[in-house]
């Protein structure tokens, strides 16, 4: 799932005074390599935007330049040397991130960094790790995750995509959906059903799949706003060699759990990176944009409009402060790992509420916009229509996560966990694109 947050834009932060000699050397090297090879940070630019093929290409090039400059590429600093990484500790990654502040990092490799590399390290064979990891660090392979299915919704273990083995080759048939960057990726982690006669979590296998091959049809999905950052894939006898099973056959759920945990931790790290910058602005700031909107709408003195704006200030500040609290609590262990789900839920709730407040503020200007209106006002209507996100799981999944994992409330009874998959009811597979 993509990190659709804007690339961090806060003030620059440095811990240079803490450097050891070795760290200092690394820092200077990073500084030099980045100055020579990375494009500048553009405030407001998306971190991930798989639709923007030029940006994707730019990131591929940046990743290669970092790798060739000896900095390991995004994700390569802490990876073991035998797999193409630098084998350094977290302190070096922090230095790398600090020094990258003036530049755009190859954020489209964020998914590899956060999810794919940890999965390969945890479950890959020696051969797989040696073959595949260096290609990530060097910018050759961009990866995506083929997990969700059009029949599946939030029931991840309900995958219908079948994998059957003939000879030494697995043949995959089915459809996957909500794959960010499916159309620009080279490789995918793909979960498929290898045994439908056992309970649903038991008959799954994780495959390492080449995206560009016969039988693989990749269609971008047009979203309401017109963007196409996600894809649906149709697999028609897509081939995967025996050597590209990740983890054990029928043990795919174990890999998927690693993957989900890595993704959640990655989101944590994702905003930790953002926050490390934002934390510099340790103070709550009131964004001028709401006031500007009110002035533009002629409502600066209206006491109701001021209530809407005041509440929006609170919404933003609380979200920011909660992020900092969660981040700090996770770092020092005062809060359990499950608290990350709380922050995700707050994000979902806050964005709905924010669009509601701003819609009330804008009134008709939000739904019928003249060219001389600011973009901030004009986009309010469409923001209200597409207030929900695809990334991060459905709202229901987030609520269940908080209730069951964080609060420890009991799961739903009457679960389908112990019933053979081929006796379960499921949906037909819809074509979205």
């Amino acid at each position, binding site marked *: 799932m993509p990190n659709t947050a804007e690339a961090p834009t806060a003030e620059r932060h440095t811990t240079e005074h803490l450097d050891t000699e070795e760290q200092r050397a690394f820092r200077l090297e990073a500084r030099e390599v980045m100055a020579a090879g990375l494009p500048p940070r553009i405030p407001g630019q998306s971190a991930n935007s798989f639709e923007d093929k030029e940006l994707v290409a730019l990131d591929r090039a940046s990743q290669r330049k970092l790798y060739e400059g000896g900095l390991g590429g995004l994700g390569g600093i802490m990876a073991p040397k035998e797999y193409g990484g630098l084998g350094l500790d977290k302190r070096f990654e922090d230095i790398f991130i600090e020094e990258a502040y003036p530049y755009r990092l190859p954020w489209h490799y964020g998914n590899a960094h956060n999810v794919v590399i940890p999965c390969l390290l945890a479950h890959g064979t020696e051969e797989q790790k040696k073959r595949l990891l260096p290609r990530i660090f060097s910018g050759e392979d961009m990866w995506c995750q083929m997990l*969700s299915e*059009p029949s*599946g*919704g*939030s*029931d991840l273990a*309900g995958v219908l995509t079948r994998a059957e083995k003939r000879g030494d080759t697995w043949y995959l048939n089915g459809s996957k*959906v*909500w794959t960010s960057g499916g159309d620009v990726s080279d490789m995918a982690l793909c979960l498929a059903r290898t045994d439908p006669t056992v309970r649903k979590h038991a008959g799954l296998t994780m495959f390492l799949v080449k995206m560009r091959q016969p039988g693989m049809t990749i269609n971008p*999905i*047009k*979203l*309401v706003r*017109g963007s196409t950052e*996600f894809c649906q894939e149709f697999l028609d006898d897509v081939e995967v060699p025996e050597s590209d099973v990740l983890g054990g056959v029928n043990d795919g759920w174990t890999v998927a759990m690693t993957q989900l945990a890595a993704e959640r931790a990655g989101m944590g790290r994702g905003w930790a990176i953002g926050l490390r910058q934002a934390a510099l602005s340790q103070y709550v700031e009131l964004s001028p944009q709401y006031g500007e909107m009110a002035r533009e709408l*002629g*409502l600066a003195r*209206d006491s*109701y*409009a001021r209530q809407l704006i005041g509440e929006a200030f609170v919404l933003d500040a609380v979200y920011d402060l909660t992020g900092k609290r969660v981040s700090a609590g996770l770092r020092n262990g005062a809060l359990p790992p499950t608290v990350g789900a709380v922050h995700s839920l707050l994000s979902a709730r806050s964005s*709905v509420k924010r669009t509601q407040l701003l*819609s*009330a503020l*804008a*009134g*008709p*200007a*939000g*739904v*019928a*916009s*003249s*060219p001389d209106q600011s973009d901030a006002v*004009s986009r309010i*209507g*469409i923001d*209200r*229509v*597409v*207030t*929900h996100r*695809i990334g991060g799981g*459905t*709202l*229901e999944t987030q*609520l269940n996560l908080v209730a069951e994992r964080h609060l420890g409330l009991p799961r*739903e009874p*009457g*679960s*389908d966990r112990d*019933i053979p998959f081929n006796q*379960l*009811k*499921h*949906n037909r597979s*819809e074509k*979205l*694109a």
Partner: protein
Amino acid sequence: MDVALSEDQQMLLDMTRRFVGDRSPIGAVRKQADTGSSFDRAVWKEAAQLGWVALFVPEEHGGIAESSDGVIDAAIVAEELGRVVYSGPFISTCVAAAAIANAGTPAQQALWLPPLANGEALAAWCFAGKSPMAGAEPGGVRAARSGDGFMLDGTACYVEDAAIADILLVTAQSDDGIMQFLVPLDAQGVAIAPLAGLDLGRRIADVRFDGVALTADALLGEPGDAAAQAFERQLQITLALQCAETVGVTDRAFEFTMEWVRDRYAFNRPIGSFQALKHRLADHITQLEGAKAAAAHAARSVQTGAPDAAIAVSVAKSQCGRFATEIIRDCVQLHGGIGLTWEHDIHFYLRRAVSNEALFGSPAAHHERLCRLAGL
């Protein structure tokens, strides 16, 4: 729509549903959006033959006003139009017809009512300014006497259907109070500035009046109190129909969401069996019943000229406006990812709901209006 329909009304409903189902189903608005085309004029003319606008036009001018329950019947139509997110100029044209039928001179009536009723002519109503009360009170355009005639200046905001209209009904403020005019679209000094509309089945524009000189016969009705009352009645008709439409939009989106949650399985259960979803849907049907009750009462009160008509439309607007958006927004949520795709119908419903919420007075504007009506 009321819980008690007459036989005629039930027929009107069935006929309208069949007609739009055949000639302008939800796919029509998607197709327009995909191809950048406007609404289908041929369909509108057929619809006019069914009497949609004629409800407000007296028999002598080709209408059926005497034999129908104008606003109540039109609300039945509007609700059906909402169910398919119809893109034709129903409300604009009905309101202009009602205004001309109400206060037009014989000449004005003879000129405009027949073509409005039979679908040959279209109208748009210019009256809103830019303020927190935009769409709920006159503003934006000023009129001044000039020789034997009048001069219009200013900008009417958020005008629906101006770009396709043949005639503009203009409500202006003047030193003599409210004045209303019928202004041909090609009058010197009239300029239409289209707005980017969230609702892909609507055409909304700002209409600029730059020293537009009108002869005396452009005046519609008497200036002052009579015009103010006529304005209020036009606003009430507009709101009653808008609310009925919003009810149709919401009812249909809720209906197919209910089908979705009954048919869609997760964890070996229909997702509609999960208690949290059930409770959300229970709250939605509850507020939707409230919206239906308020919209039906508004149509009834406006049609009968009841003493609470002004209140009733503002109540209905607040309830329908806020909860339609809230309900359909959550219906999108309940659809999961598919609800966020262009190919799914639901965004057209939500676009119209959000748009209807804001146009002709936001809920906040109508809360303020209710306070004024309560003498506060």
